[in-house]
């Protein structure tokens, strides 16, 4: 005879296996701190590349205005502003990325836990049937 609860359990597990399971297993194989640190570092690298590209495009766009009456003082100020902007961006993205990846790790861990719980419940059903 069909057991509705067992079918529901199996459907939920199959749906999870089809969608998030692979990524969640990979994420939950890390410690939370390691996962968040690693991804924050990767984010900082990407942001550095992005900032360099954005800076390059800005210079390309305003080449005439920058080169007009260029003095050493003006160059130092521009450089300082660039570094300041970079530090601000890195801090903002670093903090946001860290909390984002920590939350992501938490969610993945919870889903994996639930999946294992469902798996053990399914095992118990199987044992009962025997």
């Amino acid at each position, binding site marked *: 005879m069909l057991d509705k609860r067992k079918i529901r359990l199996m459907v939920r597990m199959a749906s999870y296996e089809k969608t998030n399971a692979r990524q969640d297993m990979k994420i939950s194989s890390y410690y939370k701190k390691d996962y968040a640190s690693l991804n924050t570092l990767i984010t900082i690298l*990407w*942001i550095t*590349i992005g900032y360099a*590209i954005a800076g*390059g*495009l800005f210079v*390309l*766009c305003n*080449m005439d205005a920058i080169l007009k009456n260029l003095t050493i003082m003006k160059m130092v100020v521009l450089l300082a502003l660039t570094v300041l902007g970079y530090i601000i961006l890195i801090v903002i993205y670093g903090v946001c990325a860290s909390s*984002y990846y920590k939350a992501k790790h938490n969610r993945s861990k919870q889903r994996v836990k639930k999946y294992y719980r469902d798996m053990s419940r399914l095992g118990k059903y199987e044992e009962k049937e025997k």
Partner: protein
Amino acid sequence: MGTILVWREQLQKVYAKYSVYIIRVLQFVLGLFVFGLINSNIGFMKAASTTICTLGLSVVCAFLPLIIMVFAATALVLLQLYTLSVGVAVIAALLFLLMYIFYFRFSAGKSWLVLLVAVAFTLKLPLVVPVAVGLLAGPIYLVPTVFGVFSYYMLHIVKTSSSSFKTGSAGKIIEVMTAFTKQVLTNKEMLLMMAVVILCVLLVYGVRTRSADHSWKIASVSGTVLAVVMCIVGNVVMNMHIAYVSLILSAVAAIAVGLLLEVMFLSVDYNRTEYLEFEDDEYHYYVKAVPKLAVTAPEKSVKQITGQPEGNSEKNTEILKKHDDVAAAGNRNYSKNEHAEDILLTRSLNKELGIDDSNNK
């Protein structure tokens, strides 16, 4: 209104039944629009601009996740731009990369909105998107919407000034890159439309989330009016050339879409609003409860009439005859029974009234 609600119910039923196919078809249609519009507007590479290529890409992307369509559209755009000019392609690639680095690395699931916004702008319906985003989503979708506006104007600039971007010598590439970057980043119309989209989404979302009656209608209309006013003011102050006819048509379409979305996603009866007031240990509650409008779609019974092969017709006739005989016998029995009941009733009445002959005898 009742008919629309019935349609909504029927639509929901159909969607629940055939959602797999409907999603594929919608993805295919979106692909047709996206790849078709790219090829018709900036189709510099003849081989990639053919109908077969558009159809093929749309079919393939219909069966893959939406993010693949975004990548395919980006690749097609870069290919077309590369055919026009290496400098333009490099700048466009860098701008796309910036979008990825600063936003889509974290939220790739929302990237389809970039395509939708670009399609709406190309179809001259720019105000539909902010109204729809404000009603159904919220400020979290602002970034992909703004990126969509940016992508559209980037391609629009390439389309309108393609002849000036054609490169010959290597020295000219830098000039083209500078000119293209300048045009893209300082485009007044693009900046105005970005501001319009941001403010319109925020206003629509802000009004929609209020508990006032008809807040969705007010949100769509007020958002559209704000967008139109901003466009007109921008036209006058910044000396731009946004066509008023298409702007008005877009505004009408935005309001119509807003009303349609309200019917589809929030159909409530404000006449039956109830105001409740109660409290617990920590709070005092003032609750406004608006009942939903619910209509059940009428069920259609379908009678299937199928043709019978000739060999069976005689048998069927016999069966039908028998069936008729049985029915007729039943009717006779029924009429007999009915007659008997009448006789019994007459007799009992006669008994009660004392006019029964047999009793008298």
